[in-house]
C-alpha cells in the first residue's frame, strides 16, 4: 500500500513538474542590428511564421529584438535563426535562450 502511494506521488510530481516546465518555457530573444523600419522588417515575421515549430514572433523596434515563442516539444537551433534573419536582411548580435 505504501509503495503504491509513493509511486502515485512520484507520478503526480512528474506530471506536475512537466506541466510547470511547459508553462514557464522561456522564449528565444534575438538581439538584431538594423531593426529601424517596421515596413522593411515584415519579412522577419513572415519567414519565421513558416516554421511549424514557431508559435509566435514578436518584433520590437524599441528593444531591437525578435522574440520567438517555440511550440511545446519543438525546437529551433541558433543556425536556423541566424540564417532566417540574414535572409530577412538583418544581422544577429546575440541569441538568448
Amino acid at each position: 500500500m505504501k509503495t503504491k502511494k509513493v509511486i502515485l506521488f512520484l507520478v503526480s510530481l512528474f506530471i506536475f513538474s512537466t506541466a510547470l516546465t511547459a508553462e514557464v518555457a522561456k522564449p528565444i530573444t534575438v538581439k538584431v542590428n538594423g531593426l529601424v523600419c517596421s515596413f522593411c522588417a515584415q519579412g522577419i515575421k513572415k519567414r519565421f511564421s513558416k516554421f511549424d515549430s514557431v508559435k509566435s514572433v514578436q518584433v520590437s523596434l524599441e528593444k531591437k529584438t525578435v522574440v520567438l515563442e517555440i511550440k511545446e516539444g519543438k525546437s529551433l537551433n541558433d543556425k536556423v535563426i541566424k540564417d532566417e534573419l540574414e535572409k530577412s536582411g538583418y544581422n544577429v548580435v546575440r541569441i538568448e535562450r
Partner: protein
Amino acid sequence: MRIFSIFLIFMSVATVLMANPVIYQDGKMIDVIVDSKTTDIQFFYSVSPKMAVGYRYFEYSKTPSPTHLGQVNLLTKRWNKEDSQANIYLLGGLGVQNDSITPYIGGEIDWENRRVYVSVLADQLVGNDPMNRWVLRTGVAPYLAEFNELNTWFIIQVSQLNSDQEKEAWVLPMLRLFKDNVLLEVGSNGTMHQATFRVHF
C-alpha cells in the same frame, strides 16, 4: 541657394533607402508610383536578400509610348547598426519602348533610423527618348511607432527630371503612412502631385 545645394550634396552622400528595392528572400513587392509626369508600376521578387528581379511599366507624359522593362535590383552594401541602417543599391534593366531597345541604369543610397531618413535616387533611361532623374528625399517621424503600429513620416522630396522635351526641378511635401506590409504616400505642392502605393507579400 548655395547652402541649400551643399545640404543636398551632403544628404546625397549620406543617404540610404527606406523603401528598399530589394526586400527579404522570397518576398514580393508591388509598387505603384503616379505623379504629374510619370506612371511607374513595378513588380519585384527578391531571389535573395541582395537581389530582386522584376517587371516595370514606366510611362512618361512627354513620350508617345510607355517603356516595358525587365529589371534587376542589387543590394551592393548594407550597414546594419544598432540604431540605424544604410544601403547602397544598383539598378539595371533592359526595356522596350515603341519597338526600340531601352537600357536602364540607376543607383540608390539611403540612411535611416527610427526618427529620420534620407535617400537619393539617380536613374536614367537610354533610348530613343532618353531621360534622367534625381530624387532626393528626407523624412522625419513625428513619433516613434512600434512594429505593429501605424507609422507616419513627413517627407520633403526634391526631384529633377531631364529629357529632350523638358528640364524641370520641383519640391514636394509628402505624407507617408505604413502599417504591417502596406505603405501609402501622397504629396502635392499645388501644381505637382504624387501618390505611391506599395505592398510586400
